[in-house]
Structure formats: structure tokens, C-alpha cells
């Protein structure tokens, strides 16, 4: 039984490490790779929970996490970024060192908050919950310190990875599958929305006229 927890904690821990990687990566392409790694780790963690707890419905969640967020969205974003020629763009809203320090503080905060849950069956989910909360908070941090639509979206999706990890950690929580499906569809929608509507305002390095032609501007 201990091994089951060890492995799920290991996977959750790896996800947290990728969260830190997301914070300090400077190039957009590297951010996307770190995000893909995190999503694939999430898929493994969910699949592990599905197998060890005998909850086959979770395999669907794992599959969605792997295919959509581990492969499709990162590849699509890679392509868009390459097409727009912004893959070398370096953002310096907050220094890497400061961001990492805040990230560490948030991780400690997550531990301090969740450790209060002392007794009962919930205590088993405690460590995973603490790691998940840390990932969620780091996602926020990323959305705050990054000033670019792509990295903000990645921050949001990484936050959502944390949420799915938390929901998986809560044993027997229904609607996990449904919620992860709904979430993934919405994310796909927003990733799309970003590139249709938003791009012109955020990336002023881009040829605006070309984008206008692309969306058949009305005015």
C-alpha cells in the first residue's frame, strides 16, 4: 500500500518540479515543452490512480490529459509561435530569482494550509492535495509574472493540471471525468480564442495588417 502512495507522490512531485521549470524558462518554446512534460506526468499520475484504486473511468481523464494537453495543444502552440516568429521573445516582468523565491514561498504556504487536515481518510490525500495546491498557486504566479498571452494561457492550463491532480487525489470524487472533459474543451476554445481575437493586441511585434487580412477584417 505504501508503494502506491510513494509512486503517486513521486509523480505529483515531478509535476511540481515542472511548475518551477515553467517559472524560470525564458523562451516560449521551452515553456511549452515544460508544460507538455507536466501534462504527461499528470496523465501518468491519473493513470496510476486509476489502476491502483481500480477506477477505470479515470483512464479517460488520463487519456485526455495525455493527448490533448500533452500533445495536441503544445504542438499547436509551437506551430503558432513559430509562424508568428515570437519563439525567442524574452519576457522580464519579474526576475527569475524573485519568481522562484515566491514560488518556494507558495509551496511552503500550500503545505502549511493543508497540513491542518490531520485526521480521517482525508489525511491520506493530504500530501497530494498540498502538492496540487502548490501547483495551482504556481500557475497563478505564472499568470501574474508573464505578460504574454501564450504564457498566460500555459499558466492557466498548468493551474488546471493542479486541479485535476487534486480531484484525483480526493478518493472517489464523482464528476472528475466530466469536469476534466468540460475543462479541456473550454481550454481548447480559449486557446483558439486567443489566437483569433487577442493576438493583435498582445504581440505588437507582429505584422498587424497580415493578421487583419487573415481574419477578414470588417472595417
Amino acid at each position, binding site marked *: 500500500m505504501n508503494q502506491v502512495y510513494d509512486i503517486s507522490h513521486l509523480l505529483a512531485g515531478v509535476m511540481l518540479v515542472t511548475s518551477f521549470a515553467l517559472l524560470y524558462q525564458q523562451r516560449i518554446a521551452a515553456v511549452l515543452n515544460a508544460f507538455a512534460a507536466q501534462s504527461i506526468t499528470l496523465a501518468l499520475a491519473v493513470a496510476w490512480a486509476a489502476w491502483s484504486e481500480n477506477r477505470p473511468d479515470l483512464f479517460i481523464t488520463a487519456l485526455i490529459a495525455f493527448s490533448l494537453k500533452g500533445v495536441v495543444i503544445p504542438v499547436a502552440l509551437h506551430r503558432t509561435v513559430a509562424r508568428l516568429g515570437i519563439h525567442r521573445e524574452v519576457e522580464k516582468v519579474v526576475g527569475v530569482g524573485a519568481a522562484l523565491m515566491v514560488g518556494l514561498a507558495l509551496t511552503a504556504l500550500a503545505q502549511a494550509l493543508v497540513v491542518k487536515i490531520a485526521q480521517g481518510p482525508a489525511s491520506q490525500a493530504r500530501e497530494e492535495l498540498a502538492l*496540487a495546491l502548490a501547483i495551482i498557486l504556481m500557475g497563478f504566479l505564472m499568470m501574474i509574472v508573464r505578460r504574454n498571452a501564450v504564457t498566460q494561457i500555459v499558466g*492557466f492550463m498548468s*493551474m488546471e493540471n493542479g486541479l485535476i491532480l487534486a480531484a484525483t487525489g480526493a478518493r*472517489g470524487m464523482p*464528476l472528475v471525468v466530466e469536469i476534466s472533459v468540460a475543462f479541456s474543451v473550454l481550454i481548447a476554445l480559449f486557446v483558439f480564442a486567443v489566437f483569433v*481575437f487577442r493576438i493583435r493586441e498582445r504581440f505588437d511585434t507582429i505584422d498587424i495588417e497580415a493578421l487583419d487580412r487573415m481574419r477578414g477584417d470588417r472595417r
Partner: protein
Amino acid sequence: MIHAYQVVVAAPYVAALVLLAIPGYRIGAIANVAASGVTFAAGLWLVFGERSVGDYAIVDEFNIVFITINTLVGFTTALFSASYIGHEIETGRLTPASLRFYHAMFQAMMGSMNLALVANNIGLMWVGLELATLITVVMVGLYRTPQAIEAAWKYFILASVGISLAFFGTILIYLAGQPTLGEGVPAMTWSLLQAAAARMDPAILDLAFIFLLIGYGTKVGLAPLHAWLPDAHAEGPTPISAVLSGLLLNVALYALLRFKMIVAGQPAALDPGPIMIVMGLVSLIFAAFMLYQRRDIKRLFAYSSIEHMGLMVFAFGMGGPLANFAGLLHMAMHSLTKSGIFFGVGHIAQAKGSQRIADIKGLSVTHPRLAVAFALAVFAISGLPPFGVFTSEFLILTTTFAREPWLALLPAFGLLVGFGALLMRLQDTIFGEPVGPAHRVDASSVPMVLHLLLVLAAGIYLPPALVAWFRRAAELLG
């Protein structure tokens, strides 16, 4: 056997699919009104129908109040929108294609809000509220101007913060309920959770409520999490501003109150009251001062919404049958008045071709009837008698005064500050030399007048049946 609550949720979703298939925007607008009418009829049916508690849906006195207001304002907004939105095509701000999308999304949003309101499952409630929020994000960006996209983006970022925190709180509530209720659906069923609250771990409940308060509080527009609200109101289409202020904020508040009812059932957990009182007061007073610096008329009333939501959260934080009654009444009155005001703002924006306050001068000269109606609506929202908002604000202040005399000074101060700002701005718009263009207004004034009459009627005479109904709902709140 079809239940009314099923119609309330399903009708808008079906209508959304149908509307996506209707190419002509005029027919779409009429179909939108018809669908909203059906939903409203189902909402009324619910009022007189039986109360029921199921695995996934709940119908009690408390949520019927919200559903009735939701379906009513949804219906009147659809009416307003049908007469208003054609103008946006003429001025080239919208295309027929985006209008088809708009109508479908309007129905989907109404359906999602109703889903959140009837859900007895805290996961389902979350899904409904989040769907409604994300749809409004898309609607806010509908005009695709840089400002609209900026507003939609800000809204999306802050809403996603709310989404995540509220969901984490929901997971924690599930974990709290799991030991007593067992794994699976029962530990997410609101009615069972509330009944079992006394046996839950208070430490988890504390943590859960903090997350839920911040998460859903972002959607209620509580300061300091309100930053999305003024932008979203100002840049979206006016009917959406009306629905945002009048309905979506309420639904978020409703979710928060449902969780307050769970946490209140465990005496060892933290008392939600004082936290809500503080957050409510901060929002109320902050927003009241912010009203003075507004240059955009929709932003002005968006801040006024923050002010009133703050007052409601304050009232519910006070708790007890009387304060809850006053809070519910204020919620109803604010919804009707504020959506009415946004209808009026829509008229003004069409008449003047601008929503900057500086461009809207001398309305009494160019559009006398609109000026009178708008002035009355602003009187109503600023809490002047004989309108219903006065009644509910008066009730909130007097019940507070009876229990905590010193505490009553703070909301009274905030309301006075807000009152001054609104009257100042009203004077700017109504009087003075007319500037700029003065177009004819095509939009129908029926919805606005209807809302005003309802608020006026409630201010003059509250039928005993209505009072009894709201009182029963207030008792459920504890």
C-alpha cells in the same frame, strides 16, 4: 413526467442549439424572446409547483427566489435586446454572423445560470456557474475592439482565478463530507452535506470556505477581486451588461450562500458571518468612493453594482431571519433596478452614440421622456423612496442598528457617499447644454418601464404572500 426545473434548465440549452441554426438575426431575436418567455413561464410554474430534493436537483424556497428573478430578467433582457441589437448591425459594430452567435450564447448563458441555481450537486453547481462565466467572457469580447478584447482577457484571467479556487474549495468540501457520507455522489450532494455538516472536520471546512469565498467572491465582484467587473460591463454589449449585473453576480452570491449554509452547520468551524461583513463593507465603501471618478456611464453603474453586492454580502453576513430577508429583498430590487438602468444606458448610448459621461449632456432637452425615465431609475438605485431599493436598504440598516448600532454607521456612510456620486453624475447627464449628436432611439422602452414599475410597486406595497415567501427563504438561510 417533466418537472418545471428541468424545463428551466433544458429550454435555454435547446434554444441555444436552435438559434445557432437560424441564419436571420431578426428571426433569431424573436426566437430568443420566445425561448426566454418559455423559460420564464417555467420559472413561474416552479413558484407555484411543489418543492423537491433529488440527487442532482433541488427546488426549495431559497433558490426559487433566484430562479424567478433570473428567468424574469432574462425574458425582459431578451425583449430589450431584440429591439436594441439591430442598431448595432446598422452602425457596423456587429455582423449578422456574430449576432447569431450572440443569441445562441445568450440562451446558453441563461441555461447555465439556471443549472447552477437548481443543482443539488456542488460539482454541478460549479460547472453551471463556470460555464455561464466563460460564456460571458466571450460575449464581452464580442465587439472585438482592442478595448473589448482587453476587457475580455482581464475578465478571463480573473475569472479563471475564481474558477480554480472555487473548484479547490469544492474538492475540500467533498473531502470533508466523505468520511460521513461515503465516497461518490452523496458527498457532493448539497442537501446531504448540509445535514451532515455537524459531523464534518472543522479544519477542512475552514479551509474550504476560505477558498470558496475568494473563488466565488471574485464572481460576486467583491473588492479587492472586482477588477474585471467594470471593464467587462463597459466593453460588452449593453444587454450583456444588464444580465451580468442583474443576474450573474446573484448566481455567484447564491453559490456562496449555499456553502455558508453548510459551514454554519458545524459550530466548531469558523463563523462565515464576520468575514462576509468585512468583505461586504470594504466593497461597499470602496465602490462608493470609486463612483466619483468615473467617466464612462457603464463603468459608473458597474461600480454601483459592486457597491450593492457589498451591501448584500454584508446583510447575509449579519445573518438572522430579518437581515437575510432584507438581503434577499435587496438582491431582487437591485437586479430589477440595475438591469433597468442598463436598458436606459443602452437607449442613451444609441441616442448619443457614446457612453462617455462628458458626451451625454442635456438629455432633458433632446430626449425628455428618456431623461425622466433614466432619472427615476437612478433615483431608485441610489435608494430614494418610494422605490423598493429604499425599502430593502432601510431594512438592512435598521436590523443592523437594532443589533450592532455602531456597525450600522459604516454601510450608511457608504450608501450616502454613493448616493452623492450618482446624483452628481445624473445631473451631468440630464441637464446642461446638449452636446454631440442626438439620434432617434429605436430600442423599446417597455422593459425598462416594466422594471421601474415593479420596483416602484415593491416600494409602495409588498404583498403579504411575497413577504411570507421571502421570509421562508430567509429562514432556510439561517
